[in-house]
């Protein structure tokens, strides 16, 4: 499945087995998008938030 990048319009490839929450990256602009919803033949993307790595112990 392919989806248009919200930033630059390039095609982002969505793996068949991708699940909600996974991050896909635009091959052209490098933007990260989170899969917000996914059905058999359609997928919704939203810009991925940046999260730090300070996760306790």
């Amino acid at each position, binding site marked *: 499945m392919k989806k248009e990048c919200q930033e630059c319009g390039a095609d982002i490839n969505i*793996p068949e*087995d*991708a*699940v909600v*929450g*996974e*991050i896909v*990256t635009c091959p052209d602009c490098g933007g*990260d998008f*989170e899969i917000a919803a996914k059905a058999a033949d359609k997928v919704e993307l939203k810009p*991925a*938030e940046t*999260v*730090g*790595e*300070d*996760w*306790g*112990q």
Partner: protein
Amino acid sequence: MIVIKIGGSVVDGLHPSTLADIKAIAEKEKLVFVHGGGKEVTATATKLGKEQKFIVSPGGVRSRYTDKETADIYTMVMSGKINKAIVGMLLRQGIKAVGVAGVDGGILKAERKKKLMVINEKGRKMVIDGGYTGKINDVDPSLVNTLVNSGYVPVVSPIALSEEFDFLNVDGDRAAAYVAGGVKADKVIFITNVNGLMLNEKLVTGMNLEQAKATLPKIGFGMEKKVLACTEALEMGVREAIIASGQVDNPISSAIAHNN
């Protein structure tokens, strides 16, 4: 005042002289301990039938995934097992130790991570619910000051309070940095199982704040966290931050004297 960060024990992996060393220093200086103990949390969680899930960040950092049940176990083990074992050890030395958690009296506040970015089992990046970990963003030094000024040695567990009053798993090194910053300690000492920070195969014997910040990207994760904690402590007004080995004779005095 000196804030000392130790692992999950004042004795395991430390030089046998450590307790006597602490006792001698406690007679002259005001001391505060902040401890870690992730391994013990994992061990107890496993015994309780709650297998700990570890997640890997895109940067390759492996961390405990702290769901609600894990947060409860974390709190219980940190503040009920590790904290009290350290308190017992200090009481036996005649040191008037008082064990509290970072939540007690509102010492440590943290921002709960709403989301975490991990690498999933297919090797792809993925966003998951943040669980109960947090980044410390505020410290109220009153309780620690009250205890220290009354002759007690506080022993603080790395648990912080979120804005919603949840108890959060927070990093022990940065907890120590914030406690030290909050009380404007003279020194914060991070006791480790290595000699200290190595750069270009040489032991670093001293850096100023600017140098430390510039060095951060060149350091591996475990030590990076300690150097980061050092820079945070210095920025909050702590006069000196020391990373030192616990495996040498009289490790705390040795660190204070800059014996490398």
